[in-house]
């Protein structure tokens, strides 16, 4: 540097004027600055943290677009879904020497592979990357490795696993090949931004998503439904248990179940989620709403209703199965499940009050949960006399069982609305009771009449009783709706229950699809003979799990 400057100085033909001196100084300054810049850059490179910029070429980031998902656990922290790393197999066709040989060997390892398509992709030299198979077991990966075919390579990818199998499958939902949620809670996780792009198959470090479900209760429900389906030869069944105060779904099972890991099961119409995705006419359990309506409009349980004559509306005649031939009290309408009585109660309350109560209970519009946006209820376009009557006993309105359970919870919990949820509600106090739906008096009377329906010798729900747990409830047997009418002998038998009836903590809803008459049911297919005893078995099993202690005295 010095030499350079002195050379420029002597080159100035001996003239020691001010101009060259200042020029040389400027030059020196410039060179010093350049050195400082180089030095600074060196220091920066030396202390720079790895990964925070610079050139890091990663094949993974270019090929993998998978998401890292947080675990899903039940309310007690038991694992329901988690990510694990699994090797995925890909090929670089430019490195494959004998595509035919490679394709043949691979098909031998993976039976059911399309050989031609595989051969075509392996011979396509324009590509440097083709997936062969994703999400291999370690053992399978080793066997592929042992083939020793050049050009076959592995990359670790994140795959979702569901240790519980089918249990809870409908609620958990599914993920696609890139680990993106396509339904259920998995989709909810993506929508709320709890998942993140997986850089280099790194597992998510986020806190697990805690559901309101209790795995043990889920299993008890699933097991009892399976038995009920065998016992009553029912091709389908659904049940749920909901906390009456918080609306938390503690357990929900729809059978036949759907394995979250088996994609083809998502398309099977038999395996639709009968709790939150299917809407059904639930029949007489809707009389719970009708009796609430009567009590809200000033009637008492002892008010008399004219049930001596069948109800006529246009060309329809509504009759009771076992008419008493005398006026009934409101309580008797409930206990005997009188269609005529329920129709009369609805008519005397008026269409506005009736639809207003359905609306307040959330039975009139879709109920959105984390699991699904909720299908729209099927309801009459306008409310005339006949619609009022049929709505009163649960026909002409199709809702999801989840929706109806939430409405029942509101009716028995003291009269405040609940929002059904599949996520655990931390700090119950923070949520507080929802908006009032019916008065506390109405709610108390409903609990009383529900309990009487189980304890009375003539009550339709007497087979739902479990010693010590004060079960109350209502049966419903609805003929199955088909195109243009109803199928006789094919019914949806349901039972909405609550326990303990004096101060309810949970509501249960059991729905059996097309149960058959058995020797044990006296050939009958009514809910009192199948859904009610199933509820009893369920409550007997789950109450201790839920911390509801039996009262030995009753």
């Amino acid at each position: 540097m010095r030499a350079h400057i002195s050379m420029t100085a002597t080159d100035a033909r001996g003239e020691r004027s001010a101009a060259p001196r200042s020029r040389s100084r400027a030059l020196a300054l410039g060179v010093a600055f350049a050195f400082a810049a180089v030095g600074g850059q060196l220091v920066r490179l030396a202390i720079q943290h790895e990964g925070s910029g610079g050139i890091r070429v990663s094949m993974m980031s270019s090929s993998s677009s998978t998401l890292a998902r947080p675990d899903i656990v039940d309310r007690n922290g038991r694992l329901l879904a988690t990510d694990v790393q699994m090797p995925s197999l890909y090929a670089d066709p430019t490195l494959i020497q004998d595509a035919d040989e490679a394709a043949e060997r691979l098909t031998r390892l993976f039976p059911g592979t399309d050989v031609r398509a595989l051969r075509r992709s392996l011979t396509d030299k324009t590509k440097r990357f083709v997936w062969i198979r994703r999400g291999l077991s370690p053992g399978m990966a080793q066997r592929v490795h042992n083939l020793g075919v050049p050009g076959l390579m592995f990359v670790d990818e994140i795959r979702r696993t569901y240790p519980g199998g089918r249990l809870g499958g409908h609620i958990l939902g599914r993920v696609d090949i890139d680990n993106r949620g396509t339904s259920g809670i998995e989709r909810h996780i993506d929508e709320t931004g709890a998942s993140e792009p997986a850089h280099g198959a790194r597992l998510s470090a986020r806190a697990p998503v805690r559901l309101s479900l209790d795995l043990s209760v889920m299993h008890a429900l699933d097991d009892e439904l399976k038995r009920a389906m065998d016992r009553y030869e029912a091709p389908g069944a659904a049940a749920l248990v909901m906390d009456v105060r918080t609306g938390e779904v503690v357990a929900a099972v729809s059978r036949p179940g759907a394995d979250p890991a088996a994609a083809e099961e998502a398309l099977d119409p038999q395996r639709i989620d009968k709790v939150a995705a299917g809407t059904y006419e639930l029949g007489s359990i809707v009389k719970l709403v009708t009796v609430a309506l009567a009590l809200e409009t000033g009637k008492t349980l002892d008010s008399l209703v004219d049930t001596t004559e069948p109800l006529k509306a246009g060309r329809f005649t509504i009759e009771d199965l076992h008419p008493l031939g005398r006026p009934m009290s409101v309580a008797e309408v409930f206990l005997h499940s009188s269609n005529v009585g329920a129709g009369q109660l609805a008519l005397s309350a008026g269409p506005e009050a009736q639809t207003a109560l359905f609306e307040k209970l959330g039975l009139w519009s879709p109920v959105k949960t984390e699991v699904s946006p909720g299908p729209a209820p099927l309801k009459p376009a306008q409310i005339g006399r006949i619609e009022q009557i049929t709505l009163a006993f649960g026909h002409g309105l199709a809702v999801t069982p989840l929706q109806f359970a939430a409405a029942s919870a509101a009716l028995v919990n003291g009269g405040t609305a609940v929002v059904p949820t599949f996520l655990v509600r931390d700090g119950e106090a923070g949520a507080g009771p929802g908006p009032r739906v019916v008065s506390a008096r109405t709610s108390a009377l409903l609990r009383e009449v529900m309990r009487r329906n189980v304890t009375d010798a003539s009550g339709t729900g007497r087979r739902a009783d479990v010693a010590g747990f004060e079960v109350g409830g209502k049966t419903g047997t609805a003929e199955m709706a088909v195109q243009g009418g109803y199928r006789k002998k094919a019914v949806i038998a349901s039972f909405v229950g609550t326990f303990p009836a004096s101060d309810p903590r949970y509501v249960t809803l059991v729905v059996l699809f097309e149960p058959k008459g058995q020797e044990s049911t006296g050939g009958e297919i009514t809910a009192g003979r199948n859904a009610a005893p199933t509820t009893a078995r369920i409550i007997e099993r789950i109450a201790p799990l839920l911390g509801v202690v039996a009262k030995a005295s009753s």
Partner: protein
Amino acid sequence: MRVLNIVAIFLGLASAFLLYGLNYDTRMIEGRLQTREREAERARADIAVLRAERAHLARPERIEPIARGMGLEPLAARHLLPGPTVAASDITTSSTGP
């Protein structure tokens, strides 16, 4: 002036060596860090697999038959003695006991 130049050159050389050494050490440490991170990542992946396996083995549908085989069953009303009797006797034994 000359002394100053020598000192400057010396300092320049020294700082160059220092910088080189620092750079080299940093790379070493970075490499070690990466190894550790990879190990941690692998351990985390193993933990994920083990937790999934444990959850699979502890699933209720597998545990239930085992529990029933051991003679266990859900708590029912008949397992409980009438409340007041138990409570009263408990209190007397604990208060009069040694």
